[in-house]
């Protein structure tokens, strides 16, 4: 085992787990904004209960998003010190902006939102959720700016072997940025919508109380997911042209342009394998398959009429069974994008073996195993907690519980000095 492989494995693991959680975060927060706005505008109690129930799941899911996000951020320096040394002047800027503009504010707002229930005025409380949502989207944007730069380095010049920033606006108009951003954001909406639809379907199938609440949630979820899958497909196919232009070797293509590029790299960086592993084409193929399958979500929309979707029962089953699909597709999509960039960290500029930190394989292996076990255990625990809270229903979520009310979900109440 060499250090490079271990470092790549660790990055792949952390990034995959991270993305499963942040996609749900981004999708759910969008729906929460709608729900809480409806509550504040109409004053209808049901919207408040929906906000609390789905908000509780959102907050539980958020935990692992932060935990894996922090590991990701530090991993750049720990395992990929060459990345910061050679291209840090350019690549570091969007990452720094992301932490300050987005991550920092998002968490600050979220803390106030969780504890501001029954304490802040409704308008202020709602504004905080808007803040959380806007900064979450800002976060997605800046991360995609950074990622797109690695896919297609622009706006820099190399002096003394180090990349220097020359034109920041080129990073924002990167051809690999906008369609990918649209693709990722709509994929997150799809995941959030389908999650809401599937959990509601479970409750409607089990005929738990709260029929009205889960009926509304199901409708919101199905419509969101259907709209989102069309966007996912649209942005997905729209990516082929810009990605093909910027990264001719991405899908192992043997076009004349790609061969020319490989010849040029062989001259500049020495002989080597400059085509990505087949894994990336595999990821792409299966993702497209799932994307088409999920396009069938539109068939559920007419069934919303007169609640046929609930009365027929089997659509509820289908929704529950479809829940893993977007998560699998998310991973496959990243495999296509990231593995398809190999053997480069920054495409055509910095190969991975020059970017990896000079750390002994033993240390890297310890870090890989330790963090994989730690994050894996936490992720599974988190999903179990999510499932339990989803199953428990909207009777009394801890989030937004009035302080005077004794918690009904505690086996033994432990009032905090009440």
């Amino acid at each position, binding site marked *: 085992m060499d250090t490079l492989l271990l470092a790549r494995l660790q990055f792949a693991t952390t990034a995959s787990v991270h993305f499963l959680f942040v996609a749900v975060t981004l999708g759910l927060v969008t729906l929460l904004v709608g729900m809480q706005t409806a509550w504040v505008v109409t004053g209808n109690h049901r919207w408040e209960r929906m906000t609390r129930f789905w908000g509780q799941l959102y907050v539980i899911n958020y935990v692992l998003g932060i935990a894996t996000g922090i590991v990701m951020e530090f991993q750049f320096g720990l395992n990929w010190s060459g990345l910061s040394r050679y291209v840090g002047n350019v690549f570091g800027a969007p990452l720094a902006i992301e*932490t*300050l503009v987005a991550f920092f504010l998002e968490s600050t707002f979220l*803390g106030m939102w969780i504890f501001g229930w029954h304490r802040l005025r409704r308008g202020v409380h709602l504004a905080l959720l808007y803040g959380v949502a806007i900064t979450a989207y800002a976060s997605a944007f800046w991360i995609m700016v950074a990622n797109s730069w690695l896919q297609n380095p622009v706006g820099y010049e190399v002096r003394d072997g180090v990349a220097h920033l020359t034109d920041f606006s080129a990073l924002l108009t990167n051809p690999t940025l906008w369609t990918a951003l649209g693709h990722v954001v709509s994929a997150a909406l799809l995941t959030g919508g389908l999650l809401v639809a599937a959990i509601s379907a479970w409750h409607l199938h089990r005929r738990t109380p709260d029929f009205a609440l889960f009926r509304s949630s199901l409708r919101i979820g199905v419509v969101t997911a259907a709209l989102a899958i069309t966007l996912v497909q649209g942005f997905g196919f729209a990516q082929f042209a810009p990605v093909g232009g910027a990264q001719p070797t991405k899908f192992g293509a043997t076009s004349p342009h790609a061969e020319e590029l490989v010849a040029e790299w062989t001259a500049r960086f020495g002989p080597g394998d400059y085509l990505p592993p087949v894994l990336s084409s595999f990821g792409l193929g299966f993702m497209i398959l799932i994307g088409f399958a999920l396009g069938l979500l539109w068939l559920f929309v007419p069934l919303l009429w007169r609640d046929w979707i609930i009365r027929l029962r089997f659509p509820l089953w289908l929704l529950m069974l479809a829940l893993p699909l977007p998560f699998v597709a998310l991973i496959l999509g990243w495999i296509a994008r990231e593995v398809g960039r190999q053997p480069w960290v920054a495409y055509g500029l910095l190969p991975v073996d020059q970017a990896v930190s000079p750390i002994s394989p033993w240390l890297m292996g310890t870090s890989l195993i330790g963090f994989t076990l730690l994050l894996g255990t936490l992720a599974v625990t*988190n999903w179990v907690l999510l499932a339990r809270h989803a199953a428990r229903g909207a009777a009394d979520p801890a989030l937004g519980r009035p*302080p005077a009310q004794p*918690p009904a979900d505690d*086996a*033994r109440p432990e009032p905090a000095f009440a």
Partner: protein
Amino acid sequence: MELAWHALLGLFFAGYLVLGGYDYGVGLLLARGADASRRRAALNAVGPFFLGNEVWLVASAGILFGAFPVLEGELLAGSYPAVLTALAGVILVTAGVQLRSRPESMRARTTWDRVIVVGSLLAALGWGVVLAGLLQGVPLHADGHVAGVTHLFTPFAAAAGLAVLALTVAHGATFLTLRLPAVEGDRLRPLARRLLRTALVAVGAAVLVGVFSDRVRAAAQRPMVGVLLAVLLVVALLTAWVALGRRRPGVAFAATSAALALPVLLVGATLWPYVLVSTVEPHASLTVTDAAASAPTLRLLGWLAVPLLPALLGFQAMCWWIFRGRIDGRAPVYW
């Protein structure tokens, strides 16, 4: 320009040690075997601030990467075991605090509380060792890379790790005397004062070991500034101890906050104009200017920081203001 970013990096990391420090201090105090309701109350005393506290670390890492990319790579990769330890701790605490009240059973909650204790321990020790590693110099070679990790295992690093650990516990206890309901807070006062005395001993020991360490003496560019700041640290702890004795928890908390911020200032000022001092090749030492990103990057980030910093600090201040004062039975309980 580089100086401003260096100061900003210091500000955010010191802010993290002050704010995250009381998270970890409160986390460590869960080990006291207090009953379940007291443990929960302690966590909800941190409550609304918790999420806003740990992001100071995220922001420090962002500034480190954006404004000091070379330092970022060498510092983190060169202090691998210490950063790994701290990071594992940070993750355990963030997951533990936010998830511990989600299961219903008391046993599960007690288990999560142990996770928080272990996480706080690792985080405090880890960051202490990272700071010590900076102060004692690193084997930075002429090729620009730090070689090996054994350079971290010194008596000074251990003493500094323990000192930061003792500081966070004392800081956490002082925070609770300020934030818990008056009766409960007063009950914790003797404990907080005992912990402050322990912190004094630990800090004193770390300073002594540091002064007698050849590597620290060689790496320190301005030893007098370092000693002066160490004395200030001791004074801050004494102030906190006296203030708690006179039932002035606010003053005491301000003093322990200063005590957690001072180590960062001490490291930064003692090494200035360097950020990484090499123990093997004097010429390989990295100055603040060498470590900084090139001018266009700093200019871009600078324009951004001018409107952004007031907003960041303003929203944090808003959080502190909204949830100021002692918690009472009417405060939301979520963690």
